[in-house]
């Protein structure tokens, strides 16, 4: 049902646009260059994100230290930042006059330029490394405590431990995460353009934006959207096709205790990995906080009102998603392969502009689209968040069904009782994480609202852009900080509820 809804929403938007196509379709040389660059940067970005995430997640999984919980929550932040805020934060650290170059210059070393393919990949890793880390970390936490005990009793070497326990887990989680990040990067455009340093860094999404907003060439926009959908769909099928069907196995749900990784070398290397990753992810956030603090007192009333509207959208998105993602995850998990999950990725790879414009065309004859601005924004945001939530929910759900499904079937536990007593308690942390991510993502999204918004229905990101447009850069930085705090707040609350529910 839920899957059909996703397809329907995307298709309806497509129909809306198709009904207004007037021009002949063509694909120019500039477009092919855009396709090549888009695919290449997405591939590099997703590879770097997932490969670097392995040591970080591994280190975080086996270490307990003061502030670990806070660090894990903060790791969610880069992902939900509005593009422009994140870019300015990154530039404060890695830019031409950024902290890194100041340090390099004072040490007499040559300075580095962020602009170019390296900058695009750096920014995309900044956005997506935390996501990959969180998803992997969750995998680690689902390893039954008994495995670690057994491994310790058998005196497995670190290498054997990795091969027998961790590698199968990574193989199961990583391809899906890589596909997800590939698709996210596929639809990136403002980041790619700004840090890519010019028109060489033109992505398909930029061409789509141009066609929709600037040329108003709906035929071209539809064609480009289709190309983007095909790329995303292809990537999804490849990745989901290579996920092996192996289970890490069931356990008695005891709290995890780690006997491995206690050697000095391992402790040192974990510390180094965690420090580097935190520095890379937290310094730009710190820069955003510094810039924002001056601006907060300058914030006018309308910004706070907009913050309320954003909270409202976030709440709606979480609700929509609850009805969409959990049943859909249940359905996918009960199937042997993940082809259905590819549908979830469709929602993400469909440009929000395309969905927004399509729905505008459809709603317009019936009523004023502006009055539906917030619900439509919430729906589109929920669609965008769906693939993330499926990635979060499905692996855990699949394991649960595999490990407890037969026992439950033998006992005749099915339907709601199965969910209530077997699945939901085990899935609670994942549901909390998914809800938090959706809410935060939704609060920070500018997306479709610009097409629909009226003055009094502005969301916080929109209001922030308006401040920038009126030269009020400091106040805009304040609004960005507010947005960061709010998104992190939503994320933390949902995550916390999920973990509390699981612990009880």
């Amino acid at each position: 049902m839920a899957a059909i809804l996703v397809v329907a929403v995307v298709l309806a938007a497509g129909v809306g646009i198709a009904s207004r196509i007037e021009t002949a379709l063509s694909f120019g040389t500039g477009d092919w260059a855009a396709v090549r660059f888009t695919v290449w940067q997405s591939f590099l970005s997703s590879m770097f994100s997932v490969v670097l995430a392995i040591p970080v997640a591994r280190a975080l999984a086996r270490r307990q230290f003061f502030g670990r919980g806070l660090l894990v929550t903060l790791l969610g932040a880069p992902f939900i930042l509005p593009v422009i805020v994140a870019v300015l934060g990154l530039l404060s650290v890695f830019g031409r006059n950024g902290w890194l170059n100041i340090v390099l210059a004072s040490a007499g070393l040559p300075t580095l330029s962020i602009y170019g393919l390296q900058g695009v990949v750096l920014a995309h890793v900044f956005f997506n490394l935390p996501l990959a880390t969180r998803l992997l970390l969750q995998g680690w936490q689902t390893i039954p405590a008994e495995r670690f005990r057994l491994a310790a009793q058998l005196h497995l070497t670190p290498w054997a431990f990795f091969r027998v326990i961790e590698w199968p887990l990574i193989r199961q989680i990583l391809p899906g995460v890589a596909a997800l990040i590939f698709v996210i990067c596929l639809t990136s455009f403002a980041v790619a353009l700004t840090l890519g340093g010019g028109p060489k860094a033109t992505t398909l999404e930029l061409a789509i934006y141009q066609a929709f907003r600037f040329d108003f060439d709906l035929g071209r926009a539809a064609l480009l959207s289709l190309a983007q959908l095909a790329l995303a769909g292809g990537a999804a099928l490849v990745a989901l096709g290579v996920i092996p069907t192996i289970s890490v196995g069931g356990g008695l749900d005891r709290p995890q205790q780690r006997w491995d990784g206690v050697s000095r070398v391992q402790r040192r290397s974990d510390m180094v990995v965690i420090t580097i990753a935190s520095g890379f992810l937290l310094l730009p956030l710190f820069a955003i906080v510094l810039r924002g603090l001056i601006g907060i007192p300058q914030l006018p009333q309308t910004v706070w009102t907009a913050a309320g509207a954003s909270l409202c959208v976030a709440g709606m998105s979480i609700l929509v998603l609850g009805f969409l993602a959990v049943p859909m995850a249940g359905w996918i998990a009960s199937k042997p392969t993940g082809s259905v999950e590819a549908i979830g990725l469709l929602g993400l790879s469909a440009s929000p502009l395309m969905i927004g414009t399509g729905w505008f065309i459809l709603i317009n004859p019936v009523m004023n689209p502006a009055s539906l601005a917030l619900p439509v924004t919430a729906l589109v945001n929920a669609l965008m968040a769906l693939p993330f939530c499926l990635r979060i929910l499905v692996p855990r759900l699949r394991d649960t069904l595999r490990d407890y499904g037969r026992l439950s079937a033998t006992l005749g536990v099915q339907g709601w009782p199965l969910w209530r007593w077997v699945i939901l308690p085990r899935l609670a942390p994942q549901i909390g994480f998914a809800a938090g991510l959706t809410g935060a993502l939704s609060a920070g999204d500018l997306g479709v609202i610009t097409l629909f918004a009226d003055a009094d229905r502005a969301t916080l990101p929109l209001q922030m852009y308006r401040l920038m447009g009126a030269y009020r850069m400091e106040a805009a930085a304040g609004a960005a900080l507010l947005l960061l705090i709010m998104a992190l707040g939503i994320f933390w609350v949902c995550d916390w509820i999920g973990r509390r529910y699981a612990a009880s």
Partner: protein
Amino acid sequence: MKALTLAATTLIAASAAAADTPILTVYAGDYFTSEWGPGPIIEKEFEAICDCDLVFSTGDLLPRLLLEGKRIEADVVMGLTSDVTAKARATGLLAPHGQDNSALTLPIEWSDETFLPFNYGHTAFMYDTTRMETPPASFDDLINLPDDVRIVIQDPRTSISGLALALWVEAIYGDQAQETWAKLAPKILTVTKDWSSSYGMFTEGEADMVLSYTTSPAYHMFAEEDFTKKAALFSDGHYFMTETVAKVSSTDVPELADTFLTYVMSEAFQKMIPAANWSLPSALAQDQWPEGWSELPLPEKVLFYDETEAVALRDKAVEAWRVGLSQ
């Protein structure tokens, strides 16, 4: 659901009010109605003289016009720039403005019967006097700046100011436009999607110069008392930009729309525009500009393509930009 109910209630309340006072619906650019835009002042001033209810509806102006077509609810459309008026005109949705074009004080000749300019400005590169002692005095100077100077510009494919820059280079260099871009390429730090991101990079000190407007220093002068942000004036001339207002032919309150257009040309509106919109008034002699504004340095020579020329040259200018900067 709550928001839906709220929206519905607002709609009902709005239509109930319609029974008493006529409503003038004005579509405007997104920046317009925020409290930092000119919208709120216009609404207050106009409602004081019209005995009506002025309702702004904001969003992406041109896409919205084209998407809604005949279902357009606006009586007046405000904020279309001269580079996109051709597409808006082609919809056939707009009526003659009926105002006297000779009352305009623009630096160019304006004879359009449909689109009435309400402000203007020019593209210009901004610099910071604390970081750059001698600004370039021509486009050639810009190209020949020291090697370490970095400029941030906007993409002509996604932003109006970026498009104006591409046309500016086209106007000065013509067939040498692509070559010019290739020469300028090492100085271009990066290209952003919109003006805001570029300007943010400039005020943060990441870029030494930014593509903006000749009127941008006014904000820093009057709102922040900061006299270090200036526009470099080029002897080649600067590309002219104007925002226009137009009447929708299907309006159910044509007299009210006319009153609004008359108000736009009035002294009250024109005197308000500079500080509310950080742009120059379209129909006000320079000696009547608000205090301090006549001291704002402005270019002597102005370059401009009318909408027909702009449409014809656009693809060529943008392609010269793309290829020149891609090398």
